[in-house]
């Protein structure tokens, strides 16, 4: 199936967020070569929070995170990521949900 590329940024743009600057609620464990689980997050995260840096390592930017837990389910068991909820009141604020 051919998939046209969709700009997630445009979708996230209509959401409301209260970003807890400097306190990301998800962390990626330091690594040199990403595990298959980490690589899967590049695609599976519905907000495309995961990206490769120029050294080929997986990084996370939680600003657009919708706190769904998908990356937790995939990446926490292997210890690849540490996952928590943002502090109370911070993060995504759904108006409709």
């Amino acid at each position, binding site marked *: *199936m051919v*998939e*046209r*590329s*969709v700009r*997630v940024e445009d*979708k*996230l743009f*209509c*959401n409301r967020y*209260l970003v807890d600057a400097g306190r990301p609620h998800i962390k990626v464990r330091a690594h040199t070569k990403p595990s298959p*689980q980490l690589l*899967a997050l590049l*695609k*599976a995260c*519905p*907000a*495309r929070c995961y990206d490769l840096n120029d050294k080929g390592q997986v990084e996370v930017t939680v600003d657009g995170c*919708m*706190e*769904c*837990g*998908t990356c*937790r*389910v*995939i990446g*926490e*068991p292997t210890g690849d990521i540490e*996952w*928590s*909820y*943002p*502090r*109370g*009141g911070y*993060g*995504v*604020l*759904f*108006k*409709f*949900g």
Partner: protein
Amino acid sequence: MIEERFDAIVVGAGMAGNAAALTMARKGMKVLQLERGEYAGSKNVQGAILYADMLEKLIPEFREDAPLERHLVEQRFWIMDDRSHVGLHYRSEDFNEERANRYTIIRAQFDRWFSSKVREAGATVLCETTVTDLAQDAYGRVIGVRTDRQDGEIHADVVVLAEGVNGLLGTRARLRERPKPNKVALAVKEMHFLPRETIEARFNLSGDEGVVIEAAGTISGGMTGMGFIYANKECISLGIGCLVADFQRTGRTPYELLDHFKRHPSVAPLIEGSEVKEYSAHLIPEGGYKAIPQLYGDGWVVVGDAAQLNNAIHREGSNLAMTSGRIAAEAIFQMKSRRLGMTAENLALYKRMLDRSFVLKDMKKYKDMPRLMHTNSQNFFLTYPQLISKAMQTYLRVDGTPKSEKQKSTLKSFVNARSWIGLFGDAFRFARAWR
């Protein structure tokens, strides 16, 4: 106030938590409810269909002021291939009744209303508070919670875990397992706004009548999953969900899947010209009966999605959440009024009461369904929809081919794709899991 001791702490102000907190507060118990969102509902995502009966048991007069969208008069089920859909519609004037049976709702607004009822009943509701851990004593008994608000612990006789599918606290305290990729689906959803008249014209509705469409087929690209389109007053909820394990396996991205669904020739005209005002994502428990964890222990009970109480086949979750929350609260109240301790032994009453309710009876009925769907996802979500569509097209096209030849070629396409043994096997397994 944190120095105070509570009869019960409820974690989460979703469907299950609100039902539990409301029930206990109404019975005069001293209840603290903690919610991490700015307001109840600000973190929650749903389709959403509200089942009136389960809410009526909690708030009989809810129709007076609850934020309801449309009452459902029609249900459609679509089996889709890439260019067509075969549909089953059920519409009945009987659903235009005084006390309608199902409504569409907008979760963030509904939860806020539900939460106001909990406050009115006398519970202390603290939003913007994330519970970080359960407090346990030396014997592992749950004695309260820790939050990100202050250093100390807040104590209570019992903690009701209504924290939803992700269930961080229960897993951190090792009361149950973390959800597994093949037991939860990831759903992505958009809210499409259109003038009321446009929605009513496109969906053949008048007044507050509503319709919902559930869709399965090649839209999930061979993954175990479903799409949905629900008509609200001035917007359409549209989304699609598939097993996390399938996303992991295929490398398909959720947003592209959603876009693909939106562009389907049967879907696109329904949302044409709409303004998208929100994009959301949430997990849904799909493990069924066999994935239900231990439901109670010393000083705690777990309710709703956190307990995997979700009937994915019928797309029911919030009603199971509300009912399990209410039943847990009733069991806790019995302990309290008989001055019995909140021990695992005593709280087992919750499980016994749940066993007698529709919640566990329904879950049990479909206990084999999740595995069947997951292990045969290619057949159920790709091959059969394509075959069914082809069969319909062959049947409907008038081109001078004798009908008997058409039947033969349709049958042949099924046998070629799945073999006789495969077809009978699938039918048998499906019937057995459904019965």
